[in-house]
């Protein structure tokens, strides 16, 4: 048996059962293209009347979008009524196919699941062939929300009484993921709020520094942090209740009093053991190494899965999930940094110490973490400082030995101090949850101060005033390049090349045109700067080959779209997206005309040059 159904058989089967029109979601663009090729010699052609309807509809679209006319898939679309629709195509092609689908001309469209959200056209049937999806660089199982988003395309209101989601297996399928997705409840969504440099500059432009905390508090992120804090507060309340029987005795802070007494009592005979005791700093830090917490170790980062004490020595230990998916056991003392970032973790009592879903989620989160993370400020409690000799010697001064509540204190101290520790831990976590956005904001402020975009009193400097207009990814790199006058005298083609290499974030290899020496040396400079900025901002890929494609388009205004496409193995849709994104970056640079007239002028020229051919077709 073949690992999956042949596209021609699939369409034939769907037609036979009147399940067309259908959207067939496939794993990759390649798969869509190969599916289309398999119709080249297929004999399941449409009757002439329907072919004519398709031809007429296509002609109407072509009148708007001339680039559609030359598309190599047109003969198959006309003959068989099937098409491909994925990110490798030009927007005009996708619009054409969507229009044809809306008019009900086609029997099937092969699309990639990655774009399910961007596919805004319905059909009678959707065909699902996979249960995982490529996200950044890995395949992950589809979420319930995603399965429903895909299946939701089936059944057109007003045109279908029922819709069908048909699963056909491929080697990449886990039926359980799909049945769960179809029958389940969509997942909750979480805030992905981050604090960016342009956000900081724009906030400080419009609001005084002291108001910012209130503005950040309005974010959905803070709303969700507060929800978690409230949960902890409720736990704290129960702890308070549990603490009640251990309330003030003869001395108001009897727990500390007793602990100090007890410690002093034990220290006297075994002074030599004091050194072996855990440092108070480690004890304090250990409180924060709770499951879900991101920590820095000597070799990279990890997420704490559980904390425990080693069997013999009772050393504080943690089990840590590492980026490669391994779980390692580390002494808490080897933890170099504790970050102000913790994830939900559904703990379990056996290896790997959390539920499978949590494990996957944490593993994913771990690989997605930004390179710089704020660390937690941890206060070392005073009370556990080693006792000065004076106190030890004056043990006789403690009231405890003769106190009437001594038996009660001795009995209760274990439970009471555990409760109190838990209380303290919760209180600290609540503080951290409530203040974490503000901490992160402050960190960004410090960086912007260091680079001179903000004054020590957090006002915008002259550079800050214009830098706040650059509101795109890698804004720090771009504004630093501008300040270093890297583009002084650079012609539009060089500027475009650099912006394209900053804008492009795909590492797919391919063949590309040669890069000019001018652009190549400029890119060298950009790379150096990007590297020096890497503690503050993730460096972009800065691919020279990508820069060359964009440079060519600008440098040679006689170059046609087809000519450009022939220079590289990049798909048309990718080139289009690259240039469209570059256009966006350039238009932000163009907003600097007040302070950087010649640079803005160069950007304006580049914009005008980019916008030709297919790049003129859409606003």
């Amino acid at each position, binding site marked *: 048996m073949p690992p999956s*159904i042949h596209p021609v058989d699939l369409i034939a089967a769907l037609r036979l*059962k009147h399940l067309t029109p259908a959207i067939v979601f496939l794993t990759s663009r390649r798969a869509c293209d190969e599916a289309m090729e398999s119709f080249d010699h297929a004999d399941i052609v449409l009757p002439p009347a329907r072919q004519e309807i398709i031809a007429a509809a296509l002609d109407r679209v072509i009148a708007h979008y001339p680039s559609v006319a030359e598309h190599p898939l047109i003969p198959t679309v006309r003959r068989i009524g099937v098409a491909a629709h994925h990110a490798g195509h030009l927007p005009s092609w996708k619009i054409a196919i969507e229009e044809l689908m809306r008019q009900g001309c086609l029997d099937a469209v092969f699309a990639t699941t990655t774009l399910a959200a961007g596919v805004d056209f319905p059909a009678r049937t959707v065909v699902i062939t996979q249960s995982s999806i490529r996200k950044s660089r*890995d395949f992950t199982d589809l979420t319930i929300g995603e399965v429903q988003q895909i299946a939701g395309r089936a059944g057109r209101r007003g045109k279908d009484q029922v819709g069908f989601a048909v699963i056909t297996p491929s080697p990449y*399928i886990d039926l359980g993921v799909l049945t769960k997705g179809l029958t389940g409840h*969509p997942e909750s969504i979480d805030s992905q709020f981050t604090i960016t440099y342009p956000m900081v500059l724009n906030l400080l432009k419009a609001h005084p520094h002291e108001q910012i905390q209130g503005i950040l508090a309005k974010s959905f992120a803070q709303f969700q942090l507060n929800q978690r804090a409230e949960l902890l507060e409720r736990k704290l309340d129960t702890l308070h209740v549990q603490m009640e029987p251990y309330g003030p005795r003869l001395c108001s802070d009897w727990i500390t009093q007793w602990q100090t007494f007890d410690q002093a009592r034990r220290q006297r005979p075994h002074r030599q053991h004091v050194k072996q005791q855990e440092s108070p700093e480690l004890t304090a830090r250990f409180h924060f190494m709770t499951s879900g917490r991101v920590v820095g170790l000597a070799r990279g980062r990890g997420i704490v899965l559980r904390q425990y004490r080693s069997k013999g020595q009772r050393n504080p230990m943690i089990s840590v999930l590492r980026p490669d998916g391994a779980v390692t056991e580390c002494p808490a003392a080897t933890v170099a940094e504790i970050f102000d970032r913790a994830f939900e973790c559904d703990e379990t009592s056996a290896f*790997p110490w959390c539920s*499978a879903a949590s494990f996957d989620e944490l593993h994913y989160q771990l690989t997605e973490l930004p390179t710089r993370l704020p660390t937690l400020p941890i206060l070392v409690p005073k009370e556990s400082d080693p006792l000065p000799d004076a106190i030890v010697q004056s043990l006789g001064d403690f009231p405890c030995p003769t106190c009437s509540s001594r038996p009660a204190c001795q009995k209760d101290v274990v439970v009471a101090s555990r409760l109190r520790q838990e209380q303290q831990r919760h209180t600290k976590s609540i503080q951290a949850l409530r203040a974490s956005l503000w901490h992160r904001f402050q960190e960004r402020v410090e960086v912007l101060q260091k680079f001179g975009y903000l004054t020590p009193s957090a006002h915008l400097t002259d550079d800050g005033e214009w830098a706040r207009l650059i509101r795109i990814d890698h804004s720090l790199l771009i504004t630093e390049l501008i300040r270093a006058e890297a583009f002084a005298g650079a012609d539009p083609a060089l500027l475009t090349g650099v912006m394209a290499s900053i804008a492009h974030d795909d590492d797919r290899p391919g063949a590309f045109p040669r890069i000019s020496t001018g652009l190549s040396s400029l890119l060298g400079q950009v790379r150096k700067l990007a590297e020096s900025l890497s503690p503050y901002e993730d460096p972009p890929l800065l691919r020279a080959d990508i820069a060359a494609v964009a440079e060519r388009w600008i440098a040679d205004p006689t170059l046609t779209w087809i000519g450009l496409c022939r220079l590289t193995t990049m798909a048309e849709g990718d080139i289009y997206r690259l240039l469209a994104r570059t256009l966006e970056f350039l238009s932000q640079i163009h907003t600097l005309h007040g302070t950087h007239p010649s640079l803005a002028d160069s950007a304006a020229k580049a914009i005008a040059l980019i916008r030709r051919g297919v790049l003129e077709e859409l606003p």
Partner: protein
Amino acid sequence: MTIDELERLLAQQPVAVLHRLARGRVHRHFRAGKRRLIELLLQHSSQNLAGLESDVQALLAERQGQPQPPPASTRTAHRAPSPPQKRVPHRGGEPESSEPAVSLAGWLEGLGVPAPQPFVPDPWQQEALAALSETDVVVSVPTGSGKTYVAVEAARRAMEDNRTVIYTSPLKALSNTKFTEFSKIFGADKVGILTGDRQENGQAPLLIMTTEILRNLLYDAASGEIDVRLDTLGLVILDESQYIADPERGVVWEETIIFCPSQAKLLLLSASIGNPQDIADWLTSIRQTTSRLVRHSKRTVPLRAGYLHPNGKLAPLFKTAAIPAGHPNHLHPEAKRLFLEYEEETMPSGRSRR
């Protein structure tokens, strides 16, 4: 257990279990498909098959211990020496209900075009529109329910009030589609589109843009550089607002909502999500009025799920024609059988593959 038995046992497991086993054993296992994953697992544990086996058993025992998959009499059959053909698929742990499974004909029943009907707005659409005259509204309904109608009607009402309307979508491609669609509805002079470097009809009362562009406008307005009439802004529609959970771009939706002028109503249109109430509560906490949540999870056009075998055979996926909400294991016996056959034949050692 011999290597073949182990391989067969692995093949019966859902991919999620295989990924769990692969952790710490196989590097970058998320890239691998099921068959490849099994190959890799066996390869990497070739020195310690017993270890792998005991881990599989432990995982199985653990899954069995979990409450969601009900006690599976069939699951223990994995270890039984019964012939493999008799096995029931891994997820099939549900107690069989006595009702007979739907037939293919029954499953296909109703297929076709409904009789044309006059357009009558759904109750939830009217509810959303009515609420919008008072306050911000969050709509969370399944894809294809008709959120566009709410957007269009809300925009029409705001424009009749001489208010400006901004409609945002997450993708430029969607913006373009909506630009065409809305121009047809309201007339070309009423609709404009803004992109980073261009404005088409930028003075129109209904402006379409991506959420990033709106965020930038709001920042400019906050620092006193207004170029769009934000003072007459009456309505901001954020379509596909489930994007707020997008790892890279979600922050833009939050910024937009935080800085949306208070005199403008917010209309958040979202596909079904798990916690729409959180979004509504959040809005309530930062805006001046108590926002309204309009949600439902019932699809307007009923959906059925089927299973198409690579040999062209079609079967209902579930025992019932409708999708059994909350019962992923109510599989149709035919689909179950066919899928098992498929998994067996495409296994690494399957005779047909090697």
